[in-house]
């Protein structure tokens, strides 16, 4: 048996304390969610004591299950709808913005870049309240509901693709595009046939990231929802969690989790395929995919 001092001075000792903290953290962060998922399969009404396994809260129950209850599956559909719409609009807007800002020198693009970074770190509730004020007090042809939610989500998320694409543009450097133009390509042609293909992994990663973020969003979509018909899953959970919800709410949350994880897993596989020959991203692995710039 070695003395504790010798153990401390041993340069080859495994980092047991760090390992313990890491494992403890993982258990603490994932176990509660796993239990919530487990109870979505509970046969009884309780969310605290186990009464047997069933799919009752997914589709078995005639009135209260996610499948049969209008309010619950409307929420799920609204979440997916917002995710698809907001992602489809955010990514092109952010990518074009990033490319334009990167090449265009001057005070205006510098200001725009600053604003974009500001929206990246701004507490979400501030933007949500400001947009709510705009829509309720200014006579714009926008009403609370899906349109307002999509607008808010785009504003909040547009910095993701912009930041990721700008970081990628910085690693690519200007030489490929200059070579293309020296060989006779027009600036737009060089952008389309050289730069954009090289940006594809970053664009794709930001697409998945934005989608996963949008379907988890709560603050913006709640303020801009207008009526119960446009409340997505996160708002539904918030509204009913402190009442006496049935495990159908667990089931709903589980389905949302499943949607996010499916998007991430498929996205990651495609991303790995796309960047398989790229030496600058391979060592980053999944980290490059979670918004790590």
């Amino acid at each position, binding site marked *: 048996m070695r003395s504790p001092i010798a153990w401390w001075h041993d340069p080859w000792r495994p980092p047991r304390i760090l390992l313990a*903290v890491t494992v403890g953290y993982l258990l603490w962060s994932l176990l509660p969610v796993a239990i919530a998922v487990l109870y979505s399969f509970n046969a009884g009404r309780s969310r605290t004591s186990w009464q047997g396994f069933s799919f009752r809260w997914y589709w078995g129950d005639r009135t209260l299950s996610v499948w049969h209850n209008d309010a619950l599956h409307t929420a799920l559909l609204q979440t997916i709808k917002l995710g698809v719409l907001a992602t489809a609009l955010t990514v092109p807007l952010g990518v074009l913005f990033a490319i334009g*800002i990167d090449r265009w020198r001057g005070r205006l693009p510098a200001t725009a870049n600053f604003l974009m970074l500001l929206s990246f770190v701004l507490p*979400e509730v501030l933007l949500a309240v400001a947009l709510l004020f*705009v829509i309720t007090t200014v006579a714009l042809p926008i009403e609370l509901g899906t349109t307002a939610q999509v607008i808010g989500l785009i504003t909040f998320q547009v910095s993701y693709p912009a930041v990721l694409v700008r970081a990628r543009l910085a690693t690519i450097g200007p030489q490929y595009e200059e070579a293309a133009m020296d060989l006779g390509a027009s600036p737009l042609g060089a952008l389309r046939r050289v730069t954009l293909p090289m940006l594809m992994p970053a664009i794709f990663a930001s697409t998945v990231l934005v989608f996963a973020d949008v379907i988890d969003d709560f603050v913006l979509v709640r303020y801009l929802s207008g009526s119960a018909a446009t409340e997505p899953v996160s708002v539904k959970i918030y509204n009913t969690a402190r009442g006496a919800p049935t495990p159908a709410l667990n089931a709903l949350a589980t389905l949302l989790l499943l949607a996010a994880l499916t998007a991430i897993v498929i996205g990651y596989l495609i991303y790995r395929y796309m960047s398989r020959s790229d030496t600058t991203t391979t060592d980053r692995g*999944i980290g490059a995919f979670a918004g790590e710039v």
Partner: protein
Amino acid sequence: MAVSVVAAPPGAAHPRRDRGRGIWPLLAAPGIAWLALFFIFPTYVVLCIVFGQVDPLFRTPVPVWNPLEWDPTQFSYVLTHIVGPDGVFGPALLRTAVYVFIASCLCLLIAFPVSFYVARLSGRRKGLLLALLIAPFWISYMMRMFAWVNLLQDDGLFNKLLSLGGLFTIDVNWLVGQPMVVILGLVYGYVPYMILPLYAGLDRLPQPVLEASRDLGADRLSSFWRVTLPLCRPTIVAAVLLTCLPMLGDYFTSDMLSASPKTAMVGNLINDGVQSPGLTGQAGAFVMIVFLVALLPMLYYIRVTARGSEVSS
């Protein structure tokens, strides 16, 4: 053929490139217009409502668009009710500062060792661990809070665990105004957002420098204290800011895990004001206060990250 190329005027390539200059503003235009319309303009609208009037009959806010006619009544009402005998808003603001401070410290205490460990790993285990670490990042915040609501019920698993299967009687209502529960809820909710940037920064630490410090005689602690920590200070600052800035506007953690005014934060003041007629201007005033408080850290974050990307690129 070669002669004709040499004979071409040296500036011939440039006009073509100059012609392309016009497309960059064109590409950026939609994004800039969007930010102007849905980011700058809303900020102005908040100001117009905070310094505007309230409809005497319907208690709805009436924005005043002309800055020269702004009326500071609502804003000064909020400011004068923070401290002193009428200080109804003071406790919530103080509580926000304390909660966010404690929660950020706890987050760092958890996130740093975890990301340090994973950044030092290599091989297959690293990929798996990293995926598990990032997983909470993709799980909805509401779902994670809801999971705790289930566990902390009066008859929930947490109380059952504490009572060791009925040995003791535990009658703590965890979900009614317990500050500790709210703080731990904040830590639970925001720790993934800190682990990610921390890991990214620690992963890029130059390994040879750390080895050199050990070779030159530094022991474990002083090598960490004098080499590792200074090297990753910008990363730590950025990671802490990324977690505590969103915490400043948080109201749903307190709502989900306590739902009591005893743990109300400034986000709750905003949320309550927005939803009740006549208080919209007050909510706007709190939005401005949070914005002003967050402004310096936000500018600092933008500067730190801008400098970091310049160095790396």
